């Protein structure tokens, strides 16, 4: 039945290739969700199968935008990692964290709120895992100094990083992928997502005050420990710090202007990484490059090829038809389904493979709706835009729902366990799920009001 519906617009057959590719895709995702084997290994092996079984030609996987690896995503990720790896030893992140704690005047609740805002802001520009790795150690130190429970700081750090990461193109991998697929630029994200994230953060700060405010009390003499810390001691390499800040400012300016300058974001980031490597005068780039999170990069590359395979055989197209059947072509309903389904899906499965699947699905859906359009006119169709934003909001904010919903959560829970402060799956969900629902409700109101009522 659905097969026939598909053949109406563009024929494809459910042949051996279709079922082979679908089987590889489903098995790969099942094993990724089960976590029995490392996700990167599965992604790379699945990609290998897609190629060796001739579902995809190597040329298609490596060189075609439609089916292959999205090198824009890969190089943007690698370049940002290189820039951060070069900046980290300067001590700038320690400086920032200690400075924030002092802004809080040693008051545990104020520090919690300030850390939430700082984490969200950093996450908007760095990858969430990096931010969490930079903030969590300091927050535990501060909690120890104030002799208060570190748990609120740990959980809040993960939640705030996922919220903040939603705000910009480079904040969270789903956004990077969406931007590349939908050809959206940095300023599009600032214009469409940053406002709702700022509103969300205001609500978030009130929420954490409500949740933890009562129990976060300390003695006056312990506050002195915080005020006695000298953040300037954190700066280990002032010369490199200056160079890094100049390059970072250039990169951010480049991101702001990349749409106008007709550069892809990866071009800006790669140039920044290259320039900072040059300025660092390192003779041994080995360790800086080795610190790139290669498992993540290979996970992306493998996934892109697996998805390319199922796009080519038509599975994704078939799925997009199902979505449109459910919502009967009503785009507001579709946008709400996309947002809420994405949120709950991302709470339980990795949002990277999820968005990698949803991206081509959205494009196929658009092709069903507007068969005469193509290219940028199709991708930026005024009725499609709210769907991209709903996907981004749902997929990024959904990560807060459970302890496994986002990489930042996994890192925080892992670090807490090592420190003897175990956060169980249930405990994380107790805080994460209500926050996720709150933030998605805010996004729902925002999308409805902005794109379907005010239409701005």
């Amino acid at each position, binding site marked *: 039945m659905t097969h026939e519906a598909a053949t109406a617009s563009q024929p494809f057959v459910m042949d051996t290739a279709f079922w082979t590719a679908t089987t590889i895709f489903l098995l790969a995702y099942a094993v990724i969700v089960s976590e029995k084997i490392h996700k990167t290994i599965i992604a790379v092996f699945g990609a290998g199968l897609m190629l060796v079984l001739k579902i995809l030609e190597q040329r298609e996987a490596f060189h075609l935008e439609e089916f292959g690896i999205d090198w824009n995503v890969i190089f943007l990720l690698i370049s940002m990692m290189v820039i951060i790896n070069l900046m980290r030893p300067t*001590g700038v*992140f*320690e400086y920032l964290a*200690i400075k924030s704690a002092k802004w809080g005047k040693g008051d545990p609740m104020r520090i919690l709120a300030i850390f939430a805002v700082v984490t969200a802001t950093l996450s908007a520009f760095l990858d969430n895992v990096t931010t969490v*790795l*930079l903030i*969590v*150690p*300091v927050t*535990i*130190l501060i909690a*120890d*100094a104030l002799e208060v429970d570190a748990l609120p700081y740990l959980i809040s750090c993960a939640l705030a990083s996922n919220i903040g990461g939603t705000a910009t193109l480079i904040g969270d991998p789903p956004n990077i992928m969406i931007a590349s697929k939908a050809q959206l630029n940095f300023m599009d994200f600032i214009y469409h997502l940053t406002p709702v994230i700022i509103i969300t953060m205001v609500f978030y700060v009130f929420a954490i005050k409500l949740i933890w405010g009562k129990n976060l009390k300390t003695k006056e003499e312990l506050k002195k*420990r915080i005020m*006695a*810390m*000298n953040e300037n*001691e*954190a700066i*280990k390499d002032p010369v490199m710090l200056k160079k890094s800040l100049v390059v970072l400012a250039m990169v951010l300016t480049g991101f702001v202007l990349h749409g106008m300058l007709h550069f892809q974001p990866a071009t800006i980031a790669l140039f920044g990484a290259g320039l900072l490597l040059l300025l660092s005068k390192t003779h041994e780039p080995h360790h800086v490059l080795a610190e790139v999170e290669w498992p993540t990069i290979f996970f992306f590359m493998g996934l892109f090829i697996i998805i390319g395979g199922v796009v080519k055989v038509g599975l994704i197209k078939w799925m997009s038809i199902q979505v449109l059947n459910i919502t009967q072509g009503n785009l507001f309903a579709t946008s709400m389904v996309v947002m809420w389904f994405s949120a709950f899906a991302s709470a339980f499965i990795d949002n990277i493979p999820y968005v990698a699947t949803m991206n081509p699905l959205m494009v196929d859906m658009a092709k069903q709706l507007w068969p005469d359009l193509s290219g940028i006119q199709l991708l930026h169709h005024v009725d499609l835009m709210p769907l991209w934003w709903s996907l981004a909001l749902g997929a990024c904010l959904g990560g807060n729902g459970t302890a496994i919903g986002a990489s930042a959560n996994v890192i925080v829970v892992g*670090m807490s366990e*090592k*420190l003897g402060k175990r956060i169980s799956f249930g405990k994380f969900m107790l805080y994460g799920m209500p926050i996720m629902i709150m933030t998605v409700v805010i996004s729902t109101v925002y999308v409805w009001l902005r794109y379907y009522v005010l239409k701005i």
Partner: protein
Amino acid sequence: MKAKDLMTPLQEYLRPDNTLKDAVNLLRTAKRGEERVGVKGLPVLDENGKLVGMLSMRDILKAVWPSYMSLMDLGDFTWDGMVESIAKKVADKKVAMVMTRDVMTVRGDASLMECVDHMIKKNVKRLPVVDKTGKVVGMLYERDVFFAITKAMLEENSSMLKVEGSKFNNKEDEGEK
């Protein structure tokens, strides 16, 4: 020269369920030969005498060192009394939770160069010497190997060796682990 010729026969050891409080006290007062001079590391044996780990002074330092300190350079932002207060908190932890589990051992008939090789490659300063059944019979300390090297270097000058050698014999093994 073989490991068994240079080793110190096993005198003191810890159990995995000893508390750190017990452990530091034994490290402080352990016998070396006839004297209670303390040592920097002891083997941990289970009830069957099987080697399950080593506990060194470095392990004790690690026990009071919060693991978040390894992630960032936070040494500048710590406060007076931090180590002492953590030390009190961890005093009742079990040795099993703190000891180094992956222990490099040598057989009694291992050559001296094999021992040196392990010490350098594994960055350890003491090697438990085991018999055929895996039972610990003694400990070979870095200083024991050092003394053997010293002896080889200064052999022709035996008077010098006597003075220096006796001095080394009373000195604790240097370094950690």
